[in-house]
């Protein structure tokens, strides 16, 4: 940053999330405005700061002012920022989100409740540095961990990771040090290291953000891992749905090669390492390490029984270390600051921090990094800003399709690998999806089963048939076509699938069913006994209707909004819904002006008798 001390610097977050919110248009507007005014301003693209709710995000560092972060911006506001702040002296505080550091002008990120919870290690540089510039990483002690590792013997590096207590962040929380030891000790002529960047969990996006925002950190961790276990070849496996992550990782790799950080004789030592990027081809199960290896070998991504574990027999039968993107991203920090420092964060059995992806009905979705042991309540209400639109919290789905849905009573659980599994969920990769009162847990469980049924590789019958059966039962429930005894059958079946499946996919697929049955049984029963969906979410158990006493007669918004021509104007000018045509798209309800609120959803799906509804 020193180079720009006297030149203002504008950064625009152009990770995939930023782009989805319109960051490229904002970037272009800024560039055009600067060119048009002939200003001397440095503009850079950066990754994701984690505050995805406020994207597109722009940071302005102007000498004499604190570094200020703005969002959400559109092209007009971005242009105004250039003219008013960089030509004039008005920092446009009305668009500002926060300052990057405490100052007298504007509150800083760390002064918000969210900032107080956060402790950034692997996210520290995300959204602040240019991910396509190796020097930007070097300035912040990048590759110092590698340099230190290369001064140590491989055994000492493994020892450092063992002492740190680092547990794998890809889902199961297996001790990384143990895995490294196993791989390093396995006798073999060659070894592989694979970075698992498959991130199949829907609802999780931190691996993408890390690869797009700070690819060198991951690469540094990968190189250190390869040195430690004695591998000369490494593969970064990235899912094909992440084209920008692929591009930025490849760019980082190219730069690292140019500077002698990858290739022959790394940093002047005798250590050689070839790294390649491999794109997955879209299969959730390929995140599972043996399936991932199968896909690398050009086969369908079908898992195989373990042991032998990949650490002793993996790719091409050679010992293969598979670690998640986050796990490897911690490695440079541990090498640089030491195992003790890492242990000083988090809890005794789960040291360090955890990165969570907050999505669903939280007010401020995005990424956050907090010490292990932070509670779900802090995460959802302080970091995430609570529930959107002041709705009631219903449940939190944590750990992806294989995790569980936890209720309000679980909110004070400190989150680490062990506490969550006791509650029936799991840490998984850290995807946290929040449900509010308008989400139905039965429908959510059905959704997850649809997902796992679809993604089951089909090899073992428990998983293939079991998930199909579970899905069938849950679908019947959401249609009000189930009987009470089905609930017990559902439970038993879920237990059987868990016990009988070959890989983690099948073993954990029943988790959403088991946890929702455990914590929300009353909601299941309402679907059975009253054919009613308390959350008004199950399509087959609701209908839309227009309350005559609230309908203004004069406005036609609902009629215009209906894509199916189902809203009709009656001779008395009141609007009504033709139930046979209604496609339940919710548009009339959204469009009806708040001062009328004439459209309502009813469950069970029965129209009120005409007289009761106040007209006739």
């Amino acid at each position, binding site marked *: 940053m020193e180079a720009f001390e006297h030149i203002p610097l504008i950064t625009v977050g152009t990770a995939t999330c930023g782009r*989805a919110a319109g960051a490229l248009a904002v970037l272009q507007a800024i560039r055009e405005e600067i060119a048009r005014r002939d200003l001397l301003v440095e503009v850079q693209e950066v990754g994701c700061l984690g505050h995805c709710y406020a994207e597109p995000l722009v940071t302005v560092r102007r000498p004499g002012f604190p570094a200020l972060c703005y969002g959400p911006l559109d092209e007009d506001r971005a242009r105004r920022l250039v003219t008013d702040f960089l030509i004039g002296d008005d920092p446009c505080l009305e668009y500002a989100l926060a300052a990057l550091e405490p100052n007298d002008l504007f509150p800083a990120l760390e002064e918000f409740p969210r900032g107080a919870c956060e402790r950034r290690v692997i996210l520290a540089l995300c959204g602040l540095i240019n991910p396509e510039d190796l020097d930007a990483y070097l300035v912040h002690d990048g590759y110092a961990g590698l340099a230190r590792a290369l001064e140590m013997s491989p055994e000492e590096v493994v020892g450092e990771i063992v002492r740190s207590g680092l547990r794998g962040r890809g889902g199961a929380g297996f001790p990384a040090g143990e895995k490294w030891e196993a791989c390093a000790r396995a006798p073999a002529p060659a070894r592989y290291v694979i970075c698992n960047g498959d991130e*199949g969990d829907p609802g999780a996006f931190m691996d*993408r953000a890390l690869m797009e925002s700070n690819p060198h950190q991951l690469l540094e961790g990968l190189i250190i891992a390869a040195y430690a276990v004695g591998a000369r070849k490494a593969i970064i496996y990235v899912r*094909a*749905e992440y084209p920008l992550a692929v591009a930025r990782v490849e760019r980082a790799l190219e730069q690292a090669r140019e500077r002698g950080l990858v290739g022959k004789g790394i940093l002047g030592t005798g250590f050689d390492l070839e790294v390649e990027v491999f794109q997955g*081809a879209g299969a959730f199960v390929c995140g599972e390490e043996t399936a991932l290896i199968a896909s690398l070998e*050009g086969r369908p991504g079908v898992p195989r029984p373990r042991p032998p574990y990949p650490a002793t027999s993996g790719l091409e039968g050679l010992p293969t270390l598979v670690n998640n993107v986050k796990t490897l991203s911690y490695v440079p920090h541990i090498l640089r600051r030491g195992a003790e420092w890492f242990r000083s964060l988090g809890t005794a059995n789960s040291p360090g921090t955890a990165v969570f992806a907050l999505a669903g009905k939280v007010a401020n979705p995005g990424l956050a990094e907090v010490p292990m042991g932070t509670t779900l309540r802090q995460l959802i209400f302080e970091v995430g800003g609570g529930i959107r639109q002041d709705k009631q919290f219903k449940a939190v789905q944590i750990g992806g399709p294989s995790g569980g849905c936890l209720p309000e009573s679980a909110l004070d659980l400190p989150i680490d690998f062990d506490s969550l599994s006791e509650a029936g969920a799991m840490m998984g990769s850290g995807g946290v999806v929040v449900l509010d009162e308008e989400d139905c847990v039965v429908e959510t469980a059905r959704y997850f089963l649809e997902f796992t049924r679809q993604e089951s590789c089909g090899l073992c019958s428990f998983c293939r048939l079991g998930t199909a059966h579970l899905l069938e039962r849950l679908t019947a429930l959401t249609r009000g076509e189930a009987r009470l005894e089905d609930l017990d059958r559902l439970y038993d079946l879920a237990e059987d699938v868990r016990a009988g499946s070959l890989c983690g996919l099948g073993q954990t697929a029943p988790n959403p069913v088991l946890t929702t049955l455990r914590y929300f049984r009353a909601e299941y029963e309402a679907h059975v006994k009253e054919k009613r969906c308390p959350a008004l979410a199950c399509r087959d158990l609701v209908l839309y209707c227009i309350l005559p006493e609230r309908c203004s007669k004069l406005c036609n918004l609902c009629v215009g909004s209906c894509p199916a021509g189902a809203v009709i104007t009656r001779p008395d000018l009141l609007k009504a819904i033709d139930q046979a045509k209604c496609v339940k798209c919710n548009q009339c309800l959204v469009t009806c002006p708040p001062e009328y609120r004439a459209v309502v959803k009813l469950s069970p799906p029965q129209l009120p008798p005409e007289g009761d509804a106040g007209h006739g």
Partner: protein
Amino acid sequence: MRETGEKEASVRAIIEELCVDGRKKPRELIPFLQKVQARLGYVPAEVLREAAGVFGVPEVEMYAVATFYHQFRLQPPGEHRIKVCLGTACHLMGGQRILDWFGRRLDVREGQTTADGKFTLERVACVGCCALAPVVVVDEKVEGKVSPTRADGILLSLGVKPEAMKPKQPESA
């Protein structure tokens, strides 16, 4: 037919070009299929047949791989691909409604291509923009916070005429 003749020629050219150094290792199979699809938009059956020899695997295994992975299409896609995310976050934020909406407007079902070959409607399981759910990927561009009105805007920008999006006239007056 002229068209098939041309296609066969291009398939052979692609295989020759991608496999200059002759026989390939299984490790290169998925990247090969990805390159074919990047070029043609799909993986034609001829490619699977021809490439089986190059990779030294039975043709049925080529099919096994091509059908196992969601990425590969064995049929040519439409001119524009609309992929609606139905990952967890998008599902909760109304992704299914958006998928239905596109389906109604274009008169296609998920996985299908419109009769005029202009649009293919697909679903994806999370594109990693969950904070901006519901998300739609139009060709290569990711669009966040897509509402039904936004969906209409996307279709208009892709050349769909407003008249084509009107609901069928209600029969009852």
